[in-house]
């Protein structure tokens, strides 16, 4: 198979052998793909190394089949995002989310566009934590695990902003204390995440715990490395 000029972002780069790189890329029409970029390190590299850094809008071409294909072309596809500080750390976290949750060679064009938009939002600076929560909500939905945020799972009634719920990974929101497990949240937090309207700080903190629990059920016992690695460095996420 030969692919040309495919919109893509590099999620992760690893040095491979003497002069090559292993890329984990997220592409619009082919989903996450593993690519070998040969001869791109060292003084005689045939592509500038900076072009293959994560989080830049690119057009990639590749050929081959299977788990690891060969990068043939790479071109920039838009200006370079100036991600710095906490925004950069947030983007590293999102990249790990995509690598761990999105299967290889499984296309998600909607999620791709959502990711591209998120990088722009993160570059703008404020509200990093809230932007991450909204992305996590959309990521779960794209993978077929959409959250049920508008109605209670046990009664089917509309979520009451002033009531307290336990959100269970399989079912959704149930009256607080009625089932074991889950993460305790106020109805107002669920409704904020449902509508995308910025919640109060206390609700935002509860949503962080909630999303972490939900993501945890999908990434397995080991959890995300970012939770440990970025816990100190990332203050706002």
């Amino acid at each position, binding site marked *: 198979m030969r692919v040309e000029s495919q919109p893509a972002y590099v999620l992760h780069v690893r040095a491979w052998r003497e002069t090559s790189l292993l890329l984990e890329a997220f592409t619009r029409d082919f989903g996450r793909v593993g690519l070998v970029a040969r001869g791109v390190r060292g003084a005689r590299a045939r592509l*500038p190394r900076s072009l293959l850094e994560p989080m830049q809008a690119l057009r990639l071409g590749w050929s081959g089949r299977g788990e690891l294909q060969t990068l043939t072309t790479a071109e920039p596809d838009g200006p370079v995002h100036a991600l710095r500080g906490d925004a950069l750390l947030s983007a590293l976290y999102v990249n790990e989310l995509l690598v761990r949750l999105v299967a290889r060679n499984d296309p998600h064009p909607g999620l791709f566009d959502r990711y591209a938009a998120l990088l722009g939002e993160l570059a703008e600076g404020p509200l990093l934590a809230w932007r991450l929560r909204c992305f996590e909500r959309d990521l779960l939905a794209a993978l077929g695990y959409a959250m049920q945020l508008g109605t209670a799972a046990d009664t089917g009634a509309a979520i009451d902003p002033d009531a307290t719920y336990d959100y269970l990974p399989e079912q959704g929101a149930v009256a607080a204390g009625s089932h074991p497990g889950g993460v305790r949240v106020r109805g107002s937090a669920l409704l904020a995440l449902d509508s995308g309207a910025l919640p109060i700080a206390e609700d935002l903190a509860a949503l962080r715990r909630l999303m972490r629990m939900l993501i945890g059920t999908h990434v397995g016992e080991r959890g995300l*490395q*970012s939770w*440990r690695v970025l816990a100190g460095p990332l203050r706002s996420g």
Partner: protein
Amino acid sequence: MTGNPDLLAELVEALRCLPGVGAKSAQRMAFHLLERDREGGARLSRVLGDAMQRIGHCKACRNFSERDECAICANASRDASLLCVVETPADLLAIEQATGYRGRYFVLMGRLSPLDGMGPQELGAGLLQQRLASGEIAEMVIATNPTVEGEATAHWLGQLARAAGVRATRLAHGVPLGGELEYVDRGTLAHAFGTRLTME
């Protein structure tokens, strides 16, 4: 040969642990040593054995060292108020060879990278914080690579310095000397433009 008929095959296989050495070059190396340079081969095996046994990490800067404290850290004529933080021993050597830097170093042995499982603990955060808290250091020079992960590492290092009340500086990066703007890659040019300096 009668005792262990596979020794030659084992040697070839062992040589393949070297970077860039495939089956063919490993075989060539093995034959070269056996046919033409047994003395060199014996020396290699002796030094390699010693090095693997005795080279550890400096207790102050984490660089490779056969002693508790490496030669740079033990050198009293180096400026103890300057601490340059690098990702790898190779980066340290590059700075030593290219600049007149006379301060000390801290080697992270990696960079902040969630997907590679590299976090503060792996990068020696505890030891670095101790050194920053010692009151001896006036400036921390952050010399991580200008990659996404190097930038993330620099951001984190800056936070550590701020928490310890130590001034942090970062290597400038931009258009290479002798380069022409037309041929400089976009990322580098965008970065150089974003961090332009006031003319004195």
